[in-house]
């Protein structure tokens, strides 16, 4: 039964198919007709080798009729399949050609080869395209098939070759050698589906071009903003190119604009990013060049709004600072001026100050650890002569120091903190530079103390032409008063007053009895601790001092004059046998040479005993000054003798005589520095620590810290205390066990 059933089924199928092909024609004539029609159609569609001369294909009536027959027999899909397999079998022709082209290209890297090749492939494709009359579906299938095959046979080297070709279509930098642009080639690409497939490649060519241009034109160009010129360049150079590549199908300018909008903004973004990266890399030097690099900062500001590279900028700048700024080789003044420049620059880039806060933090921490930071800042505040350019803008009016203010939420202009602000970000309101610098430290007292020390040095070094300099200092102090407040600078006020007072007192005393001494009379309590000295002035110097002292006591009986003999200068005139030497020297040097007027030969020990100096080595500098001037000469080990007759006779001797007053460099008066004063304070605190450890037994560090608030004015941090205790431990004053500090008895 099954056998018969199967047979019946096959028979019915057969009959069915036969009827379909035969189209109810008598006999098998229908079948024959179909067979002929199939042959005609396949012959018509057959992909031919275009290298062979061929008659042009014509869509004749016969072909149409044949296709009609096939269509009626519902055999069109089979026809397409047959056609495609024919195409496939013919594809080796194209492959051969492509291989040949690629070999040619590999030889001389001429991009023309690529364009020829692409045009050639296109020709193949056109040649094989089924006639439009067959319907669009037929064509779509064909094109897809052709493209798929084409991509599969394109060698790996094609993509780089294609990239080179695309690059060659870019507008050249120089106007002269403008290449002929053939918009047709882009249509060919489109037809072959190359545009879609190599879209990212084409874009990358564009990106690279832009990158190159930006790097070439903008690197190191900080004076002017480069963003606008670069955008102009994009408009004149890149946009026409983009029109070919992306906007070729646009019929109107409107359409082109719509098409280009998306890709254009991608290109613009890339340009901004490249510029931003470049400026980020250069940021440290840009800051150094400030204010000549304002243009670059403007660029950076605009770019940062376009691309989110703020974190990268912070990173880069912090790294640069770590590498180039915050190391022992950098001068504190340099760090400070760079910090100030950084503040100014980042204010331009990012007015809310988030970037600045992030970047400034390491600098501030570093500066806090430097011992001479305060001194540098203060020296700058008072406008020290030797400090190159001032950190402070002279045109900026001095303002009082600003304390970090609490946020005022009732402020109608209140804005939330920027989104990338850290948790401990303090809105740095546009305060002035000095406030920012002073705020490196927790307390401005350090500054005031250092200021006193500095002022003391400068006033004492003022020398004879005091009034001018004192006036200048007074002006400085007045300005600083606005910043630090009247009360903080009262001591400085007294110091300045001392200077004018001593001038007045001196005038009075001179009127009573003329003296060559013009002392600066300072009030001990208001001046920073000055190093005392035990020099006993010899001979006439002593007499002069005593005379002056006597007059002073007459004038002010309730006051006592105590000489700081090692400070000041002495103008001496030495009369020797053959010459007269004038020199401006330190008191110690004067004292030394005065001794030689008593006897012509002295030993080093003898001098030091006579002057009351415990260490003879301090003398060596004073001695060497006179040796240099040719007044003294060594006479044996540690013995010196006056050269009454100059050692170098003749013409040179005359030079000596006529030599103008030799000015010996006078050093800054040694004022006990803030650090030393701090050590002094720490000694007081040590008494307290000793007291508490004696009475309360062993204590942990934090307990000592809290107990130390019984000590007046204690303001150390626990870290400082730890350092101090550690130092005490090294001196075996205390021991520590399990964090408990104990007196070492």
């Amino acid at each position, binding site marked *: 039964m099954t056998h018969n059933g199967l047979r019946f089924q096959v028979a019915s199928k057969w009959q069915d198919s036969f009827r379909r092909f035969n189209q109810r024609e008598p006999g098998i004539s229908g079948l024959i007709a179909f067979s002929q029609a199939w042959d005609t159609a396949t012959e018509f569609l057959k992909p031919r080798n275009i290298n062979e001369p061929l008659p042009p294909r014509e869509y004749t009536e016969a072909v149409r009729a044949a296709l009609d027959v096939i269509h009626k027999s519902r055999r069109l899909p089979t026809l397409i399949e047959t056609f495609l397999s024919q195409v496939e079998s013919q594809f080796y022709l194209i492959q051969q050609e492509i291989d040949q082209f690629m070999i040619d290209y590999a030889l001389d890297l001429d991009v023309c080869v690529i364009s020829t090749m692409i045009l050639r492939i296109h020709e193949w494709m056109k040649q094989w395209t089924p006639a439009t009359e067959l319907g669009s579906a037929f064509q779509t299938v064909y094109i897809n098939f052709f493209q798929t095959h084409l991509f599969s046979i394109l060698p790996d080297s094609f993509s780089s070759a294609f990239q080179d070709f695309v690059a060659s279509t870019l507008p050249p930098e120089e106007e002269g050698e403008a290449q002929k642009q053939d918009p047709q080639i882009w249509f060919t690409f489109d037809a072959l589906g190359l545009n879609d497939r190599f879209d990212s490649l084409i874009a990358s060519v564009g990106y690279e071009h832009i990158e190159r241009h930006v790097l070439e034109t903008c690197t190191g160009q900080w004076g002017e903003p480069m963003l606008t010129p670069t955008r102009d360049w994009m408009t004149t150079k890149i946009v026409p190119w983009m029109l070919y590549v992306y906007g070729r199908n646009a019929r109107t300018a409107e359409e082109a604009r719509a098409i280009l909008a998306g890709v254009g903004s991608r290109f613009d973004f890339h340009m901004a990013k490249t510029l931003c990266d470049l400026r980020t890399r250069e940021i440290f030097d840009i800051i150094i060049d400030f204010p000549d690099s304002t243009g670059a900062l403007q660029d950076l500001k605009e770019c940062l709004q376009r691309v989110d590279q703020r974190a990268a900028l912070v990173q880069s700048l912090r790294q640069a600072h770590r590498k180039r700024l915050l190391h022992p080789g950098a001068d504190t003044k340099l760090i400070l001026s760079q910090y100030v420049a950084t503040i100014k620059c980042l204010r331009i880039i990012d007015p809310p100050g988030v970037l600045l806060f992030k970047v400034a933090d390491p600098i501030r921490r570093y500066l806090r650890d430097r011992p001479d930071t305060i001194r540098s800042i203060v020296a700058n505040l008072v406008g020290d002569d030797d400090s190159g350019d001032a950190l402070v803008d002279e045109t900026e009016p001095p303002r009082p120091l600003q304390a970090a203010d609490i946020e005022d939420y009732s402020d109608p202009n209140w804005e939330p903190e920027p989104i990338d602000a850290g948790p401990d970000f303090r809105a740095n309101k546009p305060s002035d530079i000095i406030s920012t610098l002073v705020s490196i430290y927790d307390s401005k007292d350090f500054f005031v103390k250092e200021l006193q020390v500095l002022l003391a040095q400068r006033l004492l070094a003022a020398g004879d032409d005091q009034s001018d300099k004192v006036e200048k200092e007074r002006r400085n102090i007045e300005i600083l008063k606005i910043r630090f407040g009247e009360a903080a600078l009262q001591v400085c006020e007294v110091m300045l007053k001392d200077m004018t007072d001593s001038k007045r007192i001196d005038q009075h005393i001179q009127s009573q009895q003329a003296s060559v001494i013009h002392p600066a009379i300072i009030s001990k309590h208001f001046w920073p601790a000055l190093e005392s000295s035990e020099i006993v002035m010899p001979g006439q110097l002593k007499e002069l001092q005593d005379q002056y002292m006597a007059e002073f006591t007459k004038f002010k009986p309730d006051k006592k004059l105590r000489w700081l003999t090692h400070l000041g200068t002495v103008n001496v005139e030495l009369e020797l046998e053959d010459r007269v030497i004038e020199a401006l020297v330190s008191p110690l040097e004067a004292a030394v040479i005065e001794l030689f007027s008593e006897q012509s030969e002295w030993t080093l020990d003898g001098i030091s005993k006579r002057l009351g100096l415990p260490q003879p080595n301090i003398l060596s500098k004073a001695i060497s000054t006179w040796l240099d001037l040719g007044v003294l000469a060594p006479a044996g080990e540690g013995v010196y003798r006056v050269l009454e007759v100059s050692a170098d006779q003749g013409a040179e001797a005359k030079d000596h005589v006529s030599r103008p007053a030799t000015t010996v460099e006078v050093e800054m008066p040694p004022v006990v520095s803030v650090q030393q004063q701090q050590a002094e304070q720490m000694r007081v605190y040590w008494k307290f620590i000793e*007291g508490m450890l*004696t009475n309360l*037994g062993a204590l942990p560090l934090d307990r000592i810290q809290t*107990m130390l608030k019984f000590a007046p004015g204690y303001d150390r941090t626990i870290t400082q205390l730890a350092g101090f205790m550690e130092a005490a431990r090294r001196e075996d004053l205390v021991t520590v066990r399990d964090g408990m500090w104990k007196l070492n008895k």
Partner: protein
Amino acid sequence: MEQLTSSLAPPRSNNKSNVAGTPQPAAGSVAKRLSNELMTLMMSSSPGISAFPRNDGNLFDWVGTIEGPAETIYVGLTFRISIAFPPNYPYVAPTIKFETPCYHPNVDINSGAICLDILQDKWSAVYSVQTILISLQSLLGEPNNASPLNPDAASLWDNPEAFKMQVTKHYRPLKDESA
């Protein structure tokens, strides 16, 4: 009674102590006087005597240390005392007790109470912690046997060796622990 240390404490702890209790008008000045005394005592470096507040935040409760003076029976021993200042100090004498048991004619061996004229009827506002400590130190070497708190000790005083034995028997060395 919450003591005030407003003149010394930094602002944050200041708030805390201000919350409780009505501030006595004189408390601030008492604290100031005590902190001055502390400063003087710390800087004076008198040998063998010392004192310091027991806790931060309370200037009215001190711990003192007295070393037995040389050439007395107490040489080599260290005594700890407690000093409690009344709120109306210095018009009233501070309460002072030996924390280390001290066998002494004028010291109660159990409570540590001291019989010393300047701490009772002879007190004057010009005395200070330092003068009290010096007086106590000298009291160790020169007891007032006329008004003994510890009659046994008073009677034993003339026999230095037996006395020394009693002292050593009662004495306990200081432990090094925070108060």
